């Protein structure tokens, strides 16, 4: 069962910066369990379907002789056949139910998490808070890094409507419901970039609410986390420094935080290390200076209805601001 016993002709699953997002391309502990379950159930159901179709085809095409079918004896024989088929249905259904329960139990096996991440889903982006009392906690947006082979506990909350946290390659989905907290455990078995996406309809930009899970070896994860704990980079570059001034003057700071500066807003994503992220606007665009500028200049055309207001800026200010954003590695 380990090798993907796929019945369906699948196109290439991995592609470029998209990262993988497929239940069949399992790269995590839960993901693999679920993939095996899916494949097994699909095979069983396929066999059942073929069986029923053979019966159907036979009953439609069989040669009929004389008055067969009307006699009492044949009616009884049919009764036996139908009862047998129903009994088989009961057995198969029972078997699948037990199989499903077993998988649930394997998924639930509790272990102490090595790392806890709090997820706050908002219309239409993901806030990730790494809670670590000893080393200090920090925030990212739309991108998490996790160490390979470790249990990562994800605490799921929503600040507005219902969303759903789903990284198909690593495991099943779980909703984020306002007023409640749900838990999910992730464990990536191999390094890689795994794409996740909101799976519960959450309004206008539900389609553009993706995030990436970057599983990496413990050492590089530690480095990454250490960098993230640093306050926002100070840059000597003139353009970026001017951008910082624009950031403060134009009220960007009312919504965004850049640690180590006066910007402490909490409505929008934490931008302390925005330059280090792979994408911006919840997976909408690759993170380049050009796309940053485009986003700041006109967020409502790129992602209509999103919650970033358009701030009027001159061309120079825009250039400076995007340079500053890019410098926040």
């Amino acid at each position, binding site marked *: 069962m380990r090798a993907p016993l796929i019945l369906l002709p699948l*196109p*290439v699953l991995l592609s470029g910066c998209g990262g993988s997002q497929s239940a069949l391309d399992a790269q995590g502990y839960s993901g693999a369990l679920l993939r095996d379950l899916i494949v097994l159930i699909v095979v069983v159901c396929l066999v059942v379907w073929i069986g029923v179709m053979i019966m159907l085809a036979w009953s439609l095409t069989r040669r009929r002789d004389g008055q067969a079918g009307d006699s009492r004896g044949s009616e009884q024989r049919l009764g036996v056949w139908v009862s047998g088929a129903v009994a088989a249905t009961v057995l198969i259904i029972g078997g699948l139910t037990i199989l499903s329960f077993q998988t649930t139990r394997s998924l639930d096996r509790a272990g102490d998490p090595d790392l806890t991440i709090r997820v706050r889903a908002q219309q239409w982006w993901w806030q990730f808070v790494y809670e670590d009392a000893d080393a200090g906690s920090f925030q990212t947006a739309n991108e998490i890094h996790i160490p390979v082979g470790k249990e990562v506990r994800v605490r799921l909350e929503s600040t507005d409507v219902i969303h759903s946290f789903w990284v198909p390659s690593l495991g099943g989905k779980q909703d984020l419901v306002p007023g409640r907290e749900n838990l999910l455990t992730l464990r990536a078995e191999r390094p890689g970039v795994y794409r996740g996406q909101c799976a519960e309809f959450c309004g206008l930009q539900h389609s553009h609410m993706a995030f990436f899970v970057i599983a990496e070896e413990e050492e590089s994860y530690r480095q990454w986390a250490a960098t993230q704990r640093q306050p926002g980079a100070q840059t000597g570059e003139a353009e970026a420094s001017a951008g910082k001034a624009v950031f403060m003057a134009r009220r960007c700071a009312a919504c965004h935080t850049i640690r180590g500066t006066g910007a402490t807003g909490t409505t929008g994503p934490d931008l302390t290390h925005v330059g280090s992220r792979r994408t911006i606007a919840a997976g909408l665009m690759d993170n380049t200076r050009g796309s940053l500028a485009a986003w700041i200049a006109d967020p409502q055309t790129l992602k209509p209805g999103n919650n970033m207001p358009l701030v009027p800026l001159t061309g120079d200010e825009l250039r400076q601001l995007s340079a500053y954003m890019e410098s926040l590695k």
Partner: protein
Amino acid sequence: MVTDADLDEAELERQLARTWTSKPGFWGAIASVDHKVVARRYIVTAFVFLILGGILALAMRLQLSQPEARFVDADRYNQIFTMHGSNMMFLFAVPVMEAMAVYLVPLMVGTRNIAFPRLNAFSYWLFLAGGLLLWISFALDTAPDIGWFAYVPLSGPEYGAGKRADIWAQMITFTEVSALAIAVEIVVTVFKQRAPGMSLDRIPLLVWSMLVMAFLVIMAMPAIMFASSTLIMDRLVGTHFYNPAEGGDALLWQHLFWFFGHPEVYIIFLPAVGMVSTILPTFVQRPVFGYLPLVMALIATGVLAFGLWVHHMFVVGLPRLGESFFTASSMSIAIPAGVQIFCWLATLWSGRPVFKTPLLFVIGFIITFVIGGLTGVMVASVPFDAQVHDTYFVVAHFHYVLIGGAVFPLIAAVYYWFPKMTGRMMSERLGQWAFWLIFISFHLTFFPMHILGLQGMPRRIYTYQPDLPWAGLNLFVSLSAIILSLGFLVFFIDAIRSWSFGRPAGDNPWNAPTLEWATSSPPPPYNFRSIPVVDDRNPLWSQPDALPVSSGLRTDRRELLITGVVEALPEARESSPQDSVWPFWAAIATSVMLIWSIFSPWAVVWGSIPIAIALIGWFWPKGEAEDES
């Protein structure tokens, strides 16, 4: 006092026609309470909504045919998929099944009109008003954009600006009131108006399925009425049912919605099953195999339907124990479904199939529905569902169940009963074309969606990015959808053409065994010249020469026969109400009140006054012969 015993056939028909025919002209049509007239309106309106809903589906497929397409913007797309779901469920599927019941049940049980025919007329007008409300709001760009499930808080006061969510919630009220009205009529018609001798074990399977469906409506619809009313109250007068900060709960909505929403699927599916069980025997020319198991399966499905709503909520974070229970119950619904499939196969096996269009659609139904049922077993498993919930896999699953499981039998039913309803046959040639086009392109359209779902494509997204591996299949699906719509186009062309120009059908063109084929095609306003007497499950096969009938009903007033619940022994001669315009005015008054009440809570007070006046006009006796007793 004139009874039919004293008259010859021609005179009897003339007198019955005078008593039962609606007045000509516009107001005569508005006032008509003939169940066939109302049902025909219902069916035509529901099919119009099907076409409109199908156009919406094509718009969605156009938008999804390529990544980051800009044919439809996000706001419009959200309105479109909400409209598509709500329209297909509330304005097409449920009403069309109930309309078939309104048309066929009185004929199949051998009575002259449905019970409470004025309520029936009222129900249609209210349904029409609800449909217009939804579609006019769509045209005004203020259609609901919250999905057909309208989860709070997205549909709640904070995130659902404007009246969009209110329009959705009130549209529910319109359609639910009309559905409840029909359910009551069907229950009473089946219980009290069956032909003498039609004991419980001689009721046609379609009638059984409609009876179970009516009980499902009665038990399930109050949940959605309560849910949608409290949603409007949260939005309009500031109650806190769904506000977690003040003691409400977002999941309460989901419980209420799916407590209705799951039985809703069976409300649509059970009538379809009844149609299959009725059509199949005619085209193999033998009685259906396993009448009793089939009835038991219908009832078991109806009961189980209330025990599996939580399988729509497997990923919201409920306790594991509860989820396990609902996995088991959801899986177990496959057993009655299996019983039915095997009984049909046995019927086919032992009969002599005649491959006319209705049978083709029934066979298409079996092939397709088994797939839908099996994917249903898949999503009943909590861990399986964790991967496919809210993905295109689920979209594929329920289209297999709803189109394969309900629309295919419905089309079969249209081909089968069209001659009865219009007196004319539909074209066999076009029918075969329609079947092959619809059947093949249906699978081409919806099967790839299973794969898309497993590849991680979520539902309800208006677009996707080019670097995701979904573009190829999506384009394929969109192209197949065009062929599918062509298939439906052939079907509609055939229906419209045959309505006026089809070959005349005669009373019983298929040599079918049930009572509706005992009268002329189309049936006269009084349905039967004399009320039939039944002594077999398949009366027209057991009595091929002369139909046993009763005599002694009056012809100078609309009179029908009331019989006992179990044995259908005659108990009374009862009058059936005359035509009346009051149901129409009552529906207008109700519509005004319901629409007004999404703007002001005082509408409930002031808007109720005209309703009360209309109802008094409706029930106040006019001294007609029907009032005598």
